């Protein structure tokens, strides 16, 4: 055994609190170590060359690098040793930065800890076996979860790149939040006018299959070969017949159905097409409000439908899609206003949310673009905008900034002035966050050209007084209490993870942070990947984002999927379970505990029954190894003997 060890200074990150020279020196005393040195930046190109050179010069057959976390650079160095002709698994990393130099204060203790960490790695590397990956076919189809702007962008890019793409959208139409916006900052483009064409492209692209009003039921498989069960929820309208003529909606007597698209600004019909530009433009029945379902008699829509598309008996349907990669663009939600009682949103009709205001401003909205108070449909003259309604507020469990509220408030203030020239807008804010291109100029215009009055401070309470809403808050710049008699109050309610985000994450085996947003595999360097191979993130599902950020992340995720599926075969990770058929007694306990059904029974020629691992299905968790009583099934690279070598290196000194 000829082990070479390289101790990294990482500039001062490690060398600052660890005596790297001593670590290298102590390491030389370990039997089997023939070369040990310290280096300024081992991950740098000269650093890697030094490793390759040493492998040749010293005839090393095992390499240990003591540096940062293997989660950071293990792959880098595996490639390095491979380039020098070693098997990539004849390599171990000792984490002496994140786990030592950055967290320990006493240099001597750190140094000692580093020495032992390296000793452990050396003992492990001497137990390592050469592993070789095998390759398997990939399914060149992509699943996009969510038909918002991020999801559509990802789908269009994948499809344009030649990949069959499936979109699964929870609501009856694609478009997501952007479809509900009136204008977009900072250019004041008509939102649906720029989104509409994309929606049409999605509908018309021959490589895109759209499952609207559908949800993910279950996901099995692994990168390159996922099996996805999609639940197509019953619409009670046969979409293959529905032409979207709208007759049914006209005649429907169920006039007070909740309008999800307009966030309940005004009621809609029990059978409805969510909005004029909907894709697909199909009607669906909301049984919660439909007389046929509530009273068992009505059937008006069935009578008037020219294509006899109505089917009250319709059931949910499960379809299975096989894909090789998945883009998760499931979007975001908004804070439950009950958490903000002091504002009275939901209690007082004239206290509304930003997104509701978008619908009121919108020409094709319930008010046809005329600004009016929900309570008495009069035109408001004094409008107060409250930013950070829940955002950056630990007391409601939302420590983070919702990212785009400052901008849309400025936009809404501008639009308000356009609609009602004699109106006055007030904006309560904590800070104005407008870092994007042309953003800060935009918020200034709102103040300077459109006369919106910005008050720096929090609103403490909102309550009605006659027809008015009293907004009481602090002006922290003037250091005084302010009270404004408003006709309409708009709350920039906080962005949250979309409802059901956690359940979806569990189906995908990806992780989510304490706020419910999905976790990327590296915040800086792998922002659209997840820790599950073949699953990528796009849009606000990963964290609050505005349109351009969502669109670019959609394209980025698509690029990842495209590069993954550009190959016909994928390399399987050889660090999977393997069975020693001599030792296996065929008790099949491993079969019972494998989370992936990756182990099956096999009868050898000798007639002996043993366990057999299905290589492509095994994900390498090692549950089987911990289950097997006779140590016959061993997770490669984390075998009993390899872990025992580490334990013994620690606890027998």
């Amino acid at each position, binding site marked *: 055994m000829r082990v070479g060890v390289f101790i990294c200074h990482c500039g001062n990150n490690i060398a600052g609190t660890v005596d790297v020279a001593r670590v290298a020196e102590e390491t030389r005393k370990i039997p089997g170590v023939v070369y040990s040195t310290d280096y300024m930046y081992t991950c740098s190109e000269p650093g890697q060359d030094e490793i390759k050179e040493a492998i040749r010069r010293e005839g090393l057959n095992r390499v240990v690098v003591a540096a940062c976390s293997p989660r950071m650079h293990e792959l880098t160095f595996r490639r390095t040793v491979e380039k020098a002709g070693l098997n990539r698994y004849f390599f171990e990393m000792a984490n002496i930065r994140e786990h030592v130099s950055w967290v320990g204060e006493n240099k001597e203790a750190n140094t000692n800890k580093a020495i032992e960490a390296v000793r452990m790695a050396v003992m492990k590397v001497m137990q390592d076996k050469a592993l070789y990956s095998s390759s398997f076919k990939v399914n060149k189809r992509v699943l996009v979860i969510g038909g918002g702007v991020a999801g559509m962008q990802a789908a269009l890019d994948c499809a344009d790149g030649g990949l069959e793409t499936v979109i699964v959208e929870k609501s009856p139409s694609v478009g997501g939040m952007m479809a509900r916006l009136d204008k977009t900052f900072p250019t004041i483009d008509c939102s649906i006018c720029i989104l509409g064409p994309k929606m049409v492209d999605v509908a018309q692209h021959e490589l895109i299959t759209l499952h609207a009003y559908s949800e993910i039921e279950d996901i099995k498989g692994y990168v390159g070969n996922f099996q996805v069960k999609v639940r197509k929820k019953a619409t009670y309208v046969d979409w293959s017949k529905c032409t979207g003529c709208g007759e049914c909606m006209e005649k429907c007597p169920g006039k007070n159905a909740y309008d999800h698209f307009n966030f309940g600004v005004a009621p809609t019909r029990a059978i409805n097409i969510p909005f004029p530009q909907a894709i697909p433009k199909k009607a669906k029945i909301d049984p919660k409000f439909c007389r046929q379902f509530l009273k068992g008699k009505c059937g008006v829509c069935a009578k008037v439908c020219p294509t006899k598309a109505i089917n009250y008996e319709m059931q949910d349907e499960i379809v299975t899609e096989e894909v090789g990669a998945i883009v998760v663009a499931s979007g975001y939600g908004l804070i439950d206003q009950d958490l903000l009682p002091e504002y009275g949103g939901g209690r007082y009709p004239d206290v509304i949310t930003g997104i509701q205001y978008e619908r009121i401003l919108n020409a094709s909205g319930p008010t046809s673009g005329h600004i009016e108070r929900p309570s008495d449909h009069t035109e408001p003259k004094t409008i107060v905008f409250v930013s950070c309604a829940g955002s950056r507020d630990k007391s409601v469990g939302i420590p983070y900034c919702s990212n785009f509220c400052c901008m849309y408030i400025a936009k809404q203030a501008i639009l308000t002035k356009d609609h009602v020239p004699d109106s006055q807008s007030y904006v309560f804010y904590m800070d104005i966050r407008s870092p994007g291109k042309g953003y800060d100029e935009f918020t200034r215009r709102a103040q300077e050209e459109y006369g919106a009055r910005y008050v720096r401070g929090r609103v403490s309470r909102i309550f009605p007084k006659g027809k008015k809403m009293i907004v009481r808050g602090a002006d922290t710049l003037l250091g005084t209490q302010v009270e404004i008699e408003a006709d309409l109050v708009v709350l920039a309610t906080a962005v949250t993870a979309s409802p059901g985000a956690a359940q979806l994450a569990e189906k995908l085996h990806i992780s989510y942070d304490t706020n419910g947003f999905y976790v990327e595999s590296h915040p800086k360097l792998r922002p659209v990947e997840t820790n599950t191979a073949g699953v990528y993130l796009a849009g606000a599902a990963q964290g609050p984002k505005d349109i351009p950020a969502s669109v670019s992340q959609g394209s980025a995720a698509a690029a990842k999927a495209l590069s993954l599926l550009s190959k016909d075969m994928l390399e399987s990770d050889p660090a999977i379970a393997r069975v*020693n058929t*001599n*030792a*296996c*007694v065929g*008790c*099949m*306990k491993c079969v*019972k*505990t494998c989370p992936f059904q990756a182990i099956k029974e096999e009868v050898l020629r000798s007639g002996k029954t043993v366990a057999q691992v299905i290589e492509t299905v095994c994900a390498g968790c090692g549950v089987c190894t911990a*289950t097997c*009583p*006779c*140590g*016959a099934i*061993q997770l490669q690279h984390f*075998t*009993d*003997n390899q872990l*025992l070598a580490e334990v013994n290196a620690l606890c027998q000194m």
Partner: protein
Amino acid sequence: MNRERLKEAVAEILPGVDAVIAYGQGFDAAHGEPCFVTKKEELEGLILNPLCEHNLASYLPSRKNKKTGVVVKGCDSRTIVQFLQEGLVKRENLVIIGVPCTGVVSAKKLARALDHQTVEEVRFEGETVIARTPRGEKRIALADVSPDKCRTCRYPTPLIYDVLVGEPIESDKDPAAVYDDVRELMGKSLEERKAYWEKEIGRCTRCYACRNACPLCVCQDSCIAETRDPHWQSQRSNLSEKMMFHFIHAIHLAGRCTECGECERACPMDIPLGKLKKKINMDMLDLFDYVPGIVCEDKPPLYTFKVEEKKIEEHEL
């Protein structure tokens, strides 16, 4: 326990099986022994009395693909149920002769009661054992020389059988008492418990009689106590290695041990090995409401899970 009816039952199934595993007379009057019957002539050698202490089910997994008849008491039948839970035997290859049992004799305890003299004759009158040694005849209450498992036996009638020799018996034992011995030891201090096991397990010679007698030690020839890959244990005969071996045995039996007592019975050093497994069983019962070897459809608790574990709470520091 009716020997004649047993012989009939065995004779009946004998033609259809590779062998019937029953009981014969052991090397002396105080011992029974397993007896593999393959020919009618061997029927005469069969015995059926409280000397039938062994758990004959132990032989079944190694005969998974051979059609086998086996004589089981209530306690032994739990082993078969456990086998079926784990798929270690094929039901269709088993012909189970069940024997209701009111308690057996622990050869070890009998030897003690007879001061380890050579035993010339043993008779049974109801609940009394009558033994003759060179020192004369001695009458002993069966309860005084029966294994601990009998004292808390809850299943005197086999839970699974094809033929039942004798009438079913109801248990009159208190279920709560099953783990009294474990509770007693847990009542002692940590140091006392440590000392207790150091003394008991210190006697271990690593002869592996406990392991080989254990019906649920599936590994047998592949036991990790002896292998180098994986290399869990050295061959040193010091206490920590002995401890480690019995730790392995206990952990591997977690939620599987049917408390048949074979490990203790087989141990030439009289180490109370059953206690180790019983302690874990006690916890399995508390945590997962699971008792091994009762319901064929059950799943051993460590080979399954619940997303919400009612009894497991986060441990605070």
